[in-house]
């Protein structure tokens, strides 16, 4: 585990003037993102929030390299994400999206298998990653034998197994019940403290955003634009008791006001 922490190198992400248009001009294109620029510091926990349809998931998909912006550029560690680079960025989705025919361990090994890494090393690294997410004893289980939270842990282990510089998470806990969601948030912070890569986390829960983040990018509804980046100066390690403090409530409220009353006309929804 110490090895995992040591070998991980975090990378920053630069989003430069990114716009995203879906569909073609004649058929009435939708502008999902408009001229978004932001800079994510290496090793930081960066959260994207905004109303549904603000393009935050699209932005995250562009960071994976799977989706290309209509204009603008995304750099990870100074290099363009013009296609998926699995050793730069691991991805965790809202649904765990595990392969039901594979065991937990084989699911975690999957990215390594695609790269043709020998079986012995694959197993060792997958078991390490499962240990990191607290599932050491469940390596041989199939997804249907695991709870929702456990499946998502396997998915996080799969995202971390290549020790990527960045972990991209698209509403990873949205499908879980409230209690599991809070525990998973704590778990993620604990893992992040050990591995130290940059995390970009999309959520629609402001409570979750403030609890996890170093910085929160607040986005407006369609077309998605960056409204403000809110720095969260709460001390770490975070604890659930902090949720009762005025600082916490103040931050949460400020973001809520931003989302509810976006500046300028034509933004109400």
């Amino acid at each position, binding site marked *: 585990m110490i090895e995992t922490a040591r070998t991980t190198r975090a990378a920053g992400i630069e989003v430069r003037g990114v716009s995203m248009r879906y569909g073609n001009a004649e058929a009435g294109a939708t502008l999902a993102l408009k001229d978004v620029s932001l800079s994510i510091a290496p090793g930081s926990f960066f959260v994207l929030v905004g109303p549904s349809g603000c393009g935050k998931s699209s932005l995250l998909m562009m960071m*994976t390299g*799977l989706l290309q912006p209509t204009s603008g550029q995304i750099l990870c560690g100074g290099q363009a994400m013009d*296609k*998926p*680079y*699995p050793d730069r960025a691991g*991805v965790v*989705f809202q*649904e765990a*999206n595990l*392969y*039901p*025919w*594979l065991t937990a361990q084989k699911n975690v090994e*999957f*990215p390594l*298998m*695609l*790269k043709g890494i020998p079986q012995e090393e694959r197993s060792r690294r997958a078991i390490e990653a499962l240990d990191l997410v607290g599932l050491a004893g469940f390596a041989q289980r*199939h*997804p*249907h034998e695991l709870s929702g939270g456990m499946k998502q842990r396997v998915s996080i282990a799969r995202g971390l197994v290549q020790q990527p510089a960045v972990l991209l998470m698209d509403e990873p806990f949205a499908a879980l019940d409230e209690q599991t969601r809070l525990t998973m948030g704590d778990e993620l912070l604990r893992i992040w403290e050990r591995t130290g890569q940059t995390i970009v986390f999309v959520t629609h829960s402001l409570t979750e955003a403030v609890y996890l983040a170093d910085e929160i990018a607040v986005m407006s509804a369609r077309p998605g634009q960056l409204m403000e980046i809110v720095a969260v100066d709460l001390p770490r390690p975070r604890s659930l008791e902090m949720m009762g403090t005025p600082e916490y409530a103040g931050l949460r409220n400020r973001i809520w006001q931003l989302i509810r009353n976006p500046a300028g006309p034509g933004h109400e929804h």
Partner: protein
Amino acid sequence: MKTSRWSAALLHPITFFAAAIAVWEAAARAGVVDPILLPSASQVAQVLAQLLGQAGTWEAIGVTALETLGAFLIAVPAGMLIGWFLAENRYWGAVFKPLFYFLFSIPKSIFLPMFILAVGIGLEQKIAFGVFSTIFIVVMSISTAIESVSGRHRLVAECYGASRRQIALHVFLPSMLPAILETLRLAMVFNFTGIILAEMYVSRAGIGHLLERWGQNYMLPQLMAGVVIVSCAAIVFNESLRALENKFGHWRASR
């Protein structure tokens, strides 16, 4: 626990089967049924043993096996290719899938006379009709199986840099494997039915031909022995594939 469930699953059908045979034997011996229409189980068993000792029977089995295998080996790959093509190409899928559904719903036996006129009554005709009976179920099952592969499963593989080949091999194939085995099983049911029907309709060889002749001549013990032979072949193939389906599809049941 496991063994007792196993024995329950095996023992009960066997018990009932044995009971049915016993009732049949008793009814035949007591003269409750017409011995011409229903010979006793022991008599059928005797005839079966005799038939299996004759070269002619094995020749007929060989002919039928050859036809069945030939039609299967043509219809399954061809049907899979067409099914894959229709699933992957939206335009051709939209055009041809309804046509395949229409054709699937028509009883294939009504085309048998046309097959005889066009291809004759030999081996080729049996294979052609077997292919015709089988290909529609393969096309439809495979295109449905391809379409039901989860887009999210594909997305994950793409995020981790999988090539097209890797996606086919590590996402589509394992995801579709239980459906493919199920398709093979159904294909064989349709195929075997088509071949036997074609043999019984007009032919000079094959087990279907023997069945038809025995029936025409009131040779009930032989006819029933023939039924046993055909049933055994069909059941063995079907159950082997079902066992494979369970082995590779265990994750499917409780998803």
